[in-house]
């Protein structure tokens, strides 16, 4: 029987952020359970730069960002178990995990921080018809094969989805000698950051075909080609718009899904919009001693935010262990053009520090303000020249706004035009 004060499930950026913060707060036994062969999560395969601009004010690559936290965690005395899978959580504080060196482990812990990250949506999940040949990979799997295993999945590639991983992989494939024939995006605008559209697709004259999707897959053994078709506003394929592109590889970058099977089995309430747990500003789930952070709560666009979420979760666990409870809860409702928001509720503590909301819109809009409303009255707003679903909006609200919000049971966040 093992014992810990905090067990963190997942050693990616969220889990590492949480672990370091927990040690800094003086929590004694902090244990990370990591399913992969090393800590760092997906960061070691993300060899490109663009990480850490917010958190470190430096332009780092994924491996550098991960290494900084791994070294910090080691220095602080964070313990970890690698190649370890959590099988179940019992009574909210007993974790059953397994690996090959310790065998089955029962770990008793005061608090748990869920940091399992997310997985990629697959071909099956978007239900593309056609054959089932080899040569269809999610962008992340291809990234791991190319950047870590030295294996090139194919030479002539179509990428479905213009999310950041898809765009980054388009450049990567070009750099390692493959031909990217097209990046196909179902939406009328790119899903990834502008920087990546420019530096990954435009730089190498890779066509980014908007309002199109893959409509069929060909090849009995290995992929031989795909057809793409135009998508109308309702999401239907426009008749006779289809055209065939020969290729040996199809990469899918069609979305990420928070991995919450464990959370669900534990009885944690999930938000249908984020696919992650309902949390408060300290990332506390609906089970008081279980916290969640990073991409398990919602898919973030920057790793820096993921780290911050991890740190908040550690603070939450710390408060919980100190016996500090919250007196009241204010629910955050989604208003006009808000797709998702985290946290979904705020809990009122005696001492309150500013709260950051991370949200995404449903569709792009220009010249807007993002506002928080209490019974129809604005209590906070922030102007934005443009909002896009691909870029998260961060709202930081002060103690004063929190106090105003706390006079009711719920407030609404929405996007409005300037003039409204």
């Amino acid at each position, binding site marked *: 029987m093992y014992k810990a004060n905090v067990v963190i499930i997942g050693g990616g950026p969220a889990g590492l952020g949480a672990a370091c913060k927990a040690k800094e707060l003086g929590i004694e036994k902090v244990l990370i359970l990591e399913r992969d062969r090393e800590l760092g999560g997906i960061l070691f395969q993300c060899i490109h730069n663009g990480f850490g601009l917010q958190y470190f004010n430096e*332009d780092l690559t994924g491996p550098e960002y991960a290494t900084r936290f791994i070294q910090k965690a080691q220095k602080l005395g964070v313990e970890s178990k690698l190649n370890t899978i959590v099988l179940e959580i019992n009574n909210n504080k007993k974790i059953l995990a397994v690996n090959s060196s310790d065998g089955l482990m029962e770990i008793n812990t005061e608090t748990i921080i869920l940091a399992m990250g997310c997985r990629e949506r697959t071909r099956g999940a978007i239900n593309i018809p056609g054959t089932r040949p080899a040569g269809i990979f999610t962008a992340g799997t291809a990234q791991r094969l190319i*950047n870590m295993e030295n294996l090139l999945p194919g030479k002539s590639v179509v990428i479905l989805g213009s999310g950041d991983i898809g765009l980054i992989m388009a450049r990567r494939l070009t750099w390692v000698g493959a031909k990217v024939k097209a990046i196909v995006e179902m939406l009328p605008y790119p899903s990834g950051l502008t920087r990546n559209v420019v530096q990954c697709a435009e730089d190498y004259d890779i066509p980014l075909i908007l309002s199109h999707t893959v409509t069929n897959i060909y090849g009995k053994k290995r992929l031989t080609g795909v057809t793409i078709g135009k998508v109308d506003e309702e999401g239907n394929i426009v008749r006779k718009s289809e055209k065939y592109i020969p290729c040996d590889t199809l990469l899918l970058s069609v979305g990420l899904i928070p991995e919450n099977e464990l959370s669900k089995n534990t009885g944690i309430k999930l938000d249908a919009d984020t696919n992650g747990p309902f949390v408060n500003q300290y990332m506390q789930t609906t089970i008081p001693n279980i916290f969640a952070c990073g991409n398990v709560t919602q898919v973030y666009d920057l790793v820096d935010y993921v780290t911050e979420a991890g740190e908040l979760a550690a603070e939450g666990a710390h408060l919980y262990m100190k016996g500090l409870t919250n007196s009241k809860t204010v629910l955050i409702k989604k208003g006009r053009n808000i797709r998702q928001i985290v946290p979904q509720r705020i809990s009122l503590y005696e001492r309150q520090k500013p709260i950051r909301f991370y949200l995404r819109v449903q569709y792009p809009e220009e010249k807007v303000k993002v506002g928080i409303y209490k019974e129809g009255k604005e209590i906070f707003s922030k102007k934005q020249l443009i909002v896009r679903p691909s870029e998260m909006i961060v709202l930081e609200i002060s103690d004063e706004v929190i106090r105003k919000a706390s006079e009711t049971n719920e407030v609404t966040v929405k996007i409005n035009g300037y003039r409204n």
Partner: protein
Amino acid sequence: MGIETKNKAITCILCPLGCKIDVLKKKGTIIVKGAKCAKGKDYAIKEITNPVRVLTATIRVRNGILPLLPVKTTLSIPKKQVFTCLKKLYQLEVKAPVKMGTVIVKSIANTNSDIISTRGIDSKH
């Protein structure tokens, strides 16, 4: 280069607005249209005169626990040098163990930018 006319449509990457900027280069003068701020104008000029990029890649590792070592340029390098640099990197092989931040190549392709490792890799045994 200086005498010919060059026309380019550029998407600004400096802020989420993503301005579409038209840049016209003619006999040494540069005309920028569509930038909503001064920074954007500078960016556009740089993109047409000497666009630069950070290069990240992998090189082979001998006797490492992993077959590849990720590396990057310490500075941005001219965009037109990207493939030249990649070609040089793909010839290389280093021996494990390697520490993060190790200089692998000094001033690659005379760019003044070094190539450094972006992670550590232990040796196999």
